[in-house]
Structure formats: structure tokens, C-alpha cells
């Protein structure tokens, strides 16, 4: 083994290490950026090492490809708007899959010209092709759905199951054929087309709201495709990094499904994704939908806020959450988040209800603000937490003359940049009326008993 080979092997190991550590760091907000940079450095090292490989004899075309790719990637990343990120990731992922598929094709024609490869190599080439093609076409559809280019609803069509079955059999049959007799470009062509169609059919019946999960799964696929390509070109760096991404992608997909309270199977195979938003939350009678939030995400929102205003209501009293809320405030205070309490004159069920409880929990008086003092501050608040309050933050009181609470002054919770509502259900409060605040764009619902939700929240804030 030459010194060059040893250097390359070493470089690959270091690159792999960078990927691993990068992935670990990407999981905490504090080190996520550093993790991404580390991972990128690893990639740079791997590319440089590969360029030194003795197999590479001509650099001209390589430079061309690299220049084009780098320019395109940089331009896309620079210009995509923040809201377009998910489809951008989908698109890029598709490119990765396509690259793997192209490698499989190149190797196919390389070997098809000669005497045909060994069995294991044949299988590796076919798998690379299959997974790469599925990743490519699937990602394109997914990105298209998110962008609104492709119908973002869950598209169902007749004979869905039989068609899928036929497709699978086609792929299997052509694959088997190629294993037995390799040099049949037309058969290989069928194989490619069938794979591409599979990717499309796999993605098209899934609703737009579930697309992020699907992209994550396809990302895992493109990792596997890279790993397979590693078997094809006999490169350990590819195998390691590809399978790393393959495995972590599956776990991440799983975690994302949990966060939506769904199983992977449910996401992939149910008609549940039929409307755009159904995956993301419940629906009101009037067709309006609310967006739930989990404690961990809420915690990040809070931890990185400058000003948080807490609006306690009767629900805080019912769940006796006064001690918990003070603890949350303390925890946020440690992270130098400013916390204020907005006390509505009739919050709770008796005059001073909130005061009694918050005083019990030793909340300093100078954190308590009455309505007139704080109403103008909501617009500066990064997050308003509505803690078991309802009527006192109901915007209907401002304009809906038919509402029983019309004319009551309310807290301007809806002026805050984000609103987290903590209650157990969509049940109304004292006045027995619906609250449109809960359906607001900026509002996320943290369902559950106030005290329990707060306890979770405190833990998550600590661990952010």
C-alpha cells in the first residue's frame, strides 16, 4: 500500500469522524451550526482525498462538474426564500439520488461492454440504480408538492394496489433477468423507468403536510444509494457515510412521526393526508384548524425569546400550576429572558384569584402587570403564553356585538409574535364561546393539564 493510499484511507476516516460528530452536534441548538460546518469540512477532506486517488487520471471534466455543481448549489442556497427551504432540501436530495443513479448507469455500461461483473457487483449496481432512481423521482414529486407545482393533495387513483404490485413485479423480473444475463441495455432501460415510476407512485398519494417526513425518508434512501454506490466503486468512505445517513435518516423520520403523533406506516399508507393541513392538527367545526406544539419545540421558542408574557387564567388555578409557572419563569430568567405576567381584571373566578395563587408561589409583585400596564407591550413580546386562560384573551370581545363578552376589555395577546396556548382541550371557558385566537396563524396549542405541560416545558428549557 502506498503512502498515498494510506493518506487517503486516513482522510476518509477523519471525514467519517467529522460526519458522525457533525450529526451529533446538529441535535442541540447551541452547537448545531458548528456541527454543520464540521460536517462540511469532512466532506471537503473526502473530496480532496478522492481527487488524489490513483484511479483518477483526467481532471478536466471533473473540474467542469465541480464548478457547475458548486455554482448551482451556492446560487440556489443563496436565493431560496426562508419559506422555500423544505422544497429546496427535497430538490437537493433528488439531485443526490440522481447522481447515484447516474453512477450506476455509468458502471452498468462499463461492465456491459466487457464480460459482465461478479454477482455481488451486479446486485450492487442494480440496487444503486433502483434506490437512486426512486429517490430522484420521489424527491422531485415531493418538492413539487411543497412548491405547489404538483397537486399537493393526496392523489388517489383507481387500481392503486394492483398497479403497485405490477410495478414491483416488473422491477423484480427485470432485475432478475439482468442478474442472469447482464448485457441487455433495453432491459436495464425498463428497470430504470420502472424505478422512476415507483418513486412517483410512492410519493403522489401522500398529502402535502406530510411531505417533510417523506423528504426525510427519501434522504435516508439517498444515503443508502450512496452506500450502494460505495459497494459499486469499492469505496469505504461512501459505505460509511452513506449508511450513516441511511440509518440516521430512518430514526429521524421515526422521530418526526412521533412528533406528529403518527406512525410511519400511517404517514405512508393512509388516506389521512388527504387535506393540506390535516396532518398538522385538529379541525374546528367551521373547518378552521389549530396547530399543536410539543413541549420541546415550545421550549426552544421560549429559550431564545427576549420577552415572554404569561397570561394566567382559571385553568392555572384549576390545575394548581402556580408553582410550576414560577419555576418556568425562573428557568427563563436564568437564560436572561424577560418574563412578565399579564393579569386580567377578571381572570379566574373571583377578584384577585390570580394574585392569591401567584403570591403563594412567591412570584415577585414587580413581575405582575395589570391590563392597562401591559397591553401595549404584547407587540414587543416574542412569546405570549396563555396559561389556562380563555375568555380574557378572546378577540371577539373587541368587535363581535353578538358575543356575550362583547365590550369586555381583553389582553392583547394576539399582538405577540408567537402565542402558545396551554389548555386541555378545545373546550370553551366561562362564557361558553369559541375563541378565534386559538386558530390564529401565530398560535400553537400545547394540549394537556397546565401543570403537567409546564413541568415538561421546564425540563425541556433546561436541556435546550
Amino acid at each position, binding site marked *: 500500500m502506498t503512502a498515498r493510499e494510506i493518506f487517503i484511507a486516513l482522510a476518509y476516516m477523519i471525514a467519517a469522524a467529522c460526519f*458522525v460528530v457533525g*450529526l451529533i452536534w*446538529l441535535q*442541540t441548538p447551541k452547537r*448545531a*451550526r458548528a456541527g454543520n460546518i464540521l*460536517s462540511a469540512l469532512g*466532506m471537503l477532506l*473526502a473530496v480532496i482525498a*478522492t481527487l488524489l*486517488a490513483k*484511479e*483518477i487520471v*483526467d481532471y478536466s*471534466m*471533473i473540474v*467542469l*462538474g*465541480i464548478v457547475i*455543481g*458548486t455554482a*448551482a*448549489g451556492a446560487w440556489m*442556497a443563496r436565493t431560496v426564500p*426562508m419559506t422555500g*427551504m423544505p422544497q*429546496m*432540501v427535497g430538490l*437537493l*436530495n433528488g*439531485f*443526490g439520488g*440522481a*447522481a447515484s443513479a*447516474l*453512477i450506476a448507469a*455509468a458502471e452498468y*455500461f462499463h461492465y456491459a461492454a466487457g464480460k459482465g461483473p461478479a454477482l*455481488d457487483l451486479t446486485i450492487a449496481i442494480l440496487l444503486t440504480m433502483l434506490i437512486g432512481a426512486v429517490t430522484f423521482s420521489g424527491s422531485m414529486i415531493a418538492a413539487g408538492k411543497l412548491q405547489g407545482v404538483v397537486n399537493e393533495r393526496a392523489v388517489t387513483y383507481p387500481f392503486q394496489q394492483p398497479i403497485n404490485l405490477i410495478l414491483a413485479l416488473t422491477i423484480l423480473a427485470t432485475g432478475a433477468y439482468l442478474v442472469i444475463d447482464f448485457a441487455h441495455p433495453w432491459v436495464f432501460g425498463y428497470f430504470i423507468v420502472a424505478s422512476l415510476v415507483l418513486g412517483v407512485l410512492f410519493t403522489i398519494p401522500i398529502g402535502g403536510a406530510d411531505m417533510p417526513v417523506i423528504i426525510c425518508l427519501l*434522504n435516508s434512501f439517498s*444515503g443508502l444509494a*450512496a452506500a450502494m*454506490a*460505495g459497494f459499486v*466503486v*469499492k*469505496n469505504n468512505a*461512501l459505505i460509511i457515510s*452513506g*449508511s*450513516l*445517513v441511511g*440509518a*440516521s*435518516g430512518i430514526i*429521524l423520520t421515526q*422521530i418526526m412521526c412521533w412528533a406528529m403523533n403518527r406512525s410511519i406506516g400511517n404517514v405512508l399508507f393512509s388516506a389521512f393526508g388527504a387535506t393540506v393541513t390535516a396532518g398538522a392538527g385538529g379541525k374546528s367545526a367551521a373547518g378552521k384548524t389549530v396547530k399543536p406544539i410539543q413541549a420541546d419545540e415550545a421550549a*426552544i421558542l421560549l429559550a*431564545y425569546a427576549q420577552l415572554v408574557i404569561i397570561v394566567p387564567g382559571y385553568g392555572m388555578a384549576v390545575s394548581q400550576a402556580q408553582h410550576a409557572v414560577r419555576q418556568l419563569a425562573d428557568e427563563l430568567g436564568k437564560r*436572561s429572558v424577560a418574563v412578565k405576567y399579564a393579569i386580567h381584571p377578571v381572570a379566574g373566578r373571583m377578584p384577585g384569584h390570580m394574585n392569591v395563587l401567584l403570591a403563594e408561589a412567591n412570584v415577585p409583585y414587580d413581575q405582575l402587570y395589570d391590563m392597562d400596564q401591559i397591553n401595549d407591550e404584547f407587540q414587543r413580546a416574542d412569546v405570549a403564553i396563555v396559561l389556562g386562560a380563555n375568555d380574557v384573551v378572546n378577540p371577539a370581545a373587541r368587535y363581535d356585538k353578538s358575543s356575550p363578552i362583547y365590550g369586555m376589555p381583553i389582553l392583547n395577546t394576539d399582538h405577540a409574535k408567537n402565542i402558545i396556548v396551554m389548555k386541555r382541550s378545545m373546550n370553551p371557558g366561562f362564557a361558553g364561546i369559541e375563541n378565534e385566537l386559538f386558530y390564529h396563524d401565530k398560535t400553537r396549542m400545547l394540549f394537556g393539564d397546565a401543570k403537567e405541560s409546564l413541568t415538561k416545558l421546564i425540563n425541556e428549557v433546561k436541556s435546550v
Partner: protein
Amino acid sequence: MTPELLSALYIFVLAMFLGFAVITKVPPLLHTPLMSGSNAISGVTVLAALLVTGSQQGPLQTILGVIAVALAMTNVVGGYLVTDRMLQMFKKKPGEK
């Protein structure tokens, strides 16, 4: 099945294990950046594309290869940059301890 392949399989399995072990509880806010970051890693297939392109197997291979390089490179560069943009929101606040 060659011993070489066996080793490659071992490496594959171990790396899968590592992949499973590495992802633990990720806060939802980081789901997208993490996905995007690992998507960039999956562009590692660029290495294979480089080898195919550079090894002068024939004009067809070179053409397929150079397209693959361009695509994979887009994936890599775009992926890392997009991820970085997403992550800028976690910049440390001045007041933070």
C-alpha cells in the same frame, strides 16, 4: 462472496449501528436543519462520481460521470449552505450566560 465484500458488509452494518446510535431526541425545531444537514452528507456520492469521471472508462461514462459530479456537488454545496442559513437563528444572544 469475497472476504472483501464481507468486510464491506461489516463496515456497512457498523456504520448503520452508528447511525442509529447517533440520533437521539431531537427537538422538532431542529428536525429540518438536521434533515438538511444529513442530506448534504448523502451527497458524498460525489466521491463515486469523481472516480467514475476521472478514470476515463469511456466517453459515455465520462459524460454520465460529469453530470453526476455536478448534481452531487449541487447537493453537497447547496445542502450545507441551506442548513447553515436555517441555523443562523440559533446565534447566541448577547445577554446569555
